C-alpha cells in the first residue's frame, strides 16, 4: 500500500532524513519512534506530500507520490497534524464537516458521518461547542474525528479502495482513557484495511497496536521490526540513551518497557 524507498530529505545543508526504507502493507500499523528531532515528523511530511523527497521515492498504491493530485489522494488519505492553529469560531461539528470537503456524498450522508465520527472519538457532547474554546485534548479529539470523517468509508470497511491514515503524535494531549480509545480506533480501522502510520512517544502505548515499529535517530532509520524485535534494552539504550527493562505484561503477554 505504502512504500518508502531509500528516502532522503535535505532542506538545508544538514540532511533531515537519510536513506529511509519502510514497507507498510495494506492494513498495517506502523509506529515511528525516536528522540526529538529524529526526523519522524519530517518523514510523515514526505509521505503526506508536504515535503518532496530529495532522494529516493515514496510510492502510494503503486504510484509515485508526486504523481498523485491533491484532490485524488484526499479521497483515501487523511493526515492529522501535531497541533491545530484554527482561530475561527467553527463549532466542532463544522470542523468535522470540513473532513468531508473532498467528497460529494451529499449533506444527509455527511451529517450521518459527522455524528458517527464525533461519537467514535467520544466527542458527541462537543458538537455544537465553539472549537476555539475547547481544551487541548478536546481539540485533538475533534481533529481526529475530522480525519476519520475524511476516510470514513475506509474506516468502516465499505470502500472500494484502501485508506491511509497518518497521525502525528495523536495521543500527546489525551488522558489515559482517550489514549486507550485511540488504540482501539487504530486497531479497528486497520483490521478493516486502513494503513496507519503514526508518530508516537509512548513505547508501551505503541506496543499495544503497532504491527511494525520504526526507531529513528538523527534522520536515520536505526531499526525496523515487530514490537518484540525492537523493544529490547539494548536498542532502547541505543536510540533513546535511556536504561530500561523490558518485561512481559502479566495478562496480555505483550512486552512492556519499564524505566
Amino acid at each position, binding site marked *: 500500500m505504502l512504500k518508502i524507498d531509500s528516502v532522503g530529505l535535505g532542506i538545508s545543508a544538514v540532511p533531515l532524513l537519510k536513506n529511509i526504507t519502510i514497507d507498510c502493507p495494506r492494513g498495517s500499523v506502523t509506529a515511528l519512534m525516536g528522540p526529538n528531532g529524529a526526523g519522524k515528523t519530517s518523514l510523515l511530511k514526505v509521505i503526506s506530500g508536504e515535503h518532496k523527497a530529495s532522494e529516493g521515492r515514496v510510492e502510494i498504491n503503486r504510484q509515485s507520490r508526486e504523481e498523485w493530485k491533491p484532490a485524488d489522494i484526499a479521497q483515501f488519505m487523511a*493526515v492529522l497534524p501535531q497541533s491545530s492553529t484554527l482561530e475561527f469560531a467553527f463549532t466542532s461539528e463544522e470542523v468535522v464537516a*470540513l473532513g468531508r470537503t473532498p467528497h460529494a456524498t451529499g449533506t444527509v450522508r455527511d451529517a450521518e458521518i459527522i455524528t458517527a465520527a464525533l461519537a467514535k472519538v467520544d466527542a458527541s457532547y462537543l458538537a455544537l461547542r465553539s472549537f476555539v474554546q475547547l481544551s487541548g485534548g478536546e481539540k485533538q479529539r475533534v481533529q481526529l474525528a475530522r480525519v476519520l470523517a475524511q476516510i470514513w468509508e475506509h474506516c468502516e470497511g465499505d470502500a472500494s479502495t484502501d485508506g491511509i491514515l497518518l497521525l502525528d503524535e495523536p495521543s500527546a494531549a489525551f488522558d489515559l482513557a482517550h489514549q486507550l480509545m485511540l488504540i482501539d480506533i487504530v486497531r479497528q480501522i486497520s483490521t478493516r484495511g486502513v494503513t496507519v502510520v503514526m508518530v508516537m512517544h509512548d513505547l508501551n502505548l505503541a506496543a499495544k497496536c503497532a504491527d511494525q515499529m520504526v526507531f529513528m535517530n538523527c534522520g536515520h532509520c536505526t531499526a525496523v521490526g515487530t514490537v518484540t524485535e525492537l523493544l529490547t534494552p539494548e536498542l532502547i539504550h541505543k536510540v533513546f540513551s535511556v536504561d530500561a527493562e523490558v518485561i512481559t505484561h502479566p495478562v496480555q503477554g505483550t512486552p512492556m518497557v519499564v524505566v
Partner: protein
Amino acid sequence: MKLLNSRLISPKRCFLLLLIALPLVSLLGLMTGPVFIPLSDILAIIFSGGGGGGGANSQEKLIVEIIRLPRVVLSLLVGALLATCGALLQGLFRNPLADPALIGVSAGASVGASLVIVFGSMLTANGLLLGLSAISVGAFAGAIITSVIIFRLATGPQGTSVATMLLAGIAISALAGAATNTLSYLADNDMLRRISLWQMGNLQGASWDRVGLCAVTSGFLGLLIPREAGALNAMLLGESEARHLGVNVEWLKRRLIIYSALGVAISVAVAGVIAFVGLMIPHVIRLLVGPDHRALLPLSALAGAILLVAADALARVVITPAELPVGVVTALLGAPFFLWLLVVQRRRT
C-alpha cells in the same frame, strides 16, 4: 443542547433580515439629500418608468434618475465588493483582522490617484474612459501594480507565503504613503484638497457608466467567488490541512489574490478609499452566523451594500448643504464599533 450553540442567529434568518433591509435602506438613500423627496414620489418615479411620474415634479424626477439612483446603486455595488473582498482576504490570511488596506492595495491606489491629480492636469481635461476620470484610472493602475509587486515579492520556489505577503503589504503601504505625502507636499492648494478628498472616499462622482463598470465586475466576481467557499473553509484549518483535504492551495491563493485585487481596485477607482467596510462587515457577520464561507460571503456582500448606502445617506444629510466624505462616515461608525468588538472579545476569552 441549544444553549451550547455558540451562534447568535441562523444564516437563513440573517439572510432574510438583510434582504428586507436592503430595499428599505435603498429607498431611504433615494429620499435623503439636500432636497428631501417623499417616499410616495420616489415610488411614483421608479414605477412610472419613462412615464409621467405621478405626483412627482420633473425636478424630483431628474434628481432621482440622474443623481440619486446611480449613486445608491453604486454604493450597493461598492459596499458589496469591499465587504466580499475583505472576507476573502481574511480567509486567505486566516486572520480576522485582515483588510484590503493591509496588503497595500489602497495605498497603491492613492499613489496612482495623487500622481494624476498633481501631474496630470492636462489629462483630466481630456474627458473620460468608460465613465472614469483620469484619477480613477490612475487609482486602478496603482492598485493593480501594487498587488502584482506584493504578490511577486511573496512568491518563491516554495509557493506564495501569506505571511511574507502581509509584511510586504505593510512595507509597500509605508512606501506608498511616503510617495503620496511627497506628492501632497508638491501639490498646490486645490490639488491638495482633491487628494485628501479622494483619500476619504466619496460617491459623488456616481454615474450610470460607473455603475455599469462596477456591475460587470461584481457580476463576474459574484459568479466565481462562491465556488471557492468550500476551499476557503478548509484553508482556515491551515494551508497543509487544506492540501490534505484535496485543495490545490497554490492555485487557490492565486485566484483569491486576483479576485480581491480586482474587486478592491475597481471600487477604489470609482469611489476612492472607503475604510472599514471590508474589515468590519465580514467580522460582524462571522460573529452572528459563524465563519462558514458559504454563508459568510453572500451575507457580507448584502451587509456591505446596506452599510455603504446607509453611510452615504448619512454623509449627505449631516452637514447639509455640504456633504461629508463617505469614508469619514464609515470610519466614524466603524472604529468605535470595532473597539467595542475587541473589548467584548477580550472579555469572552
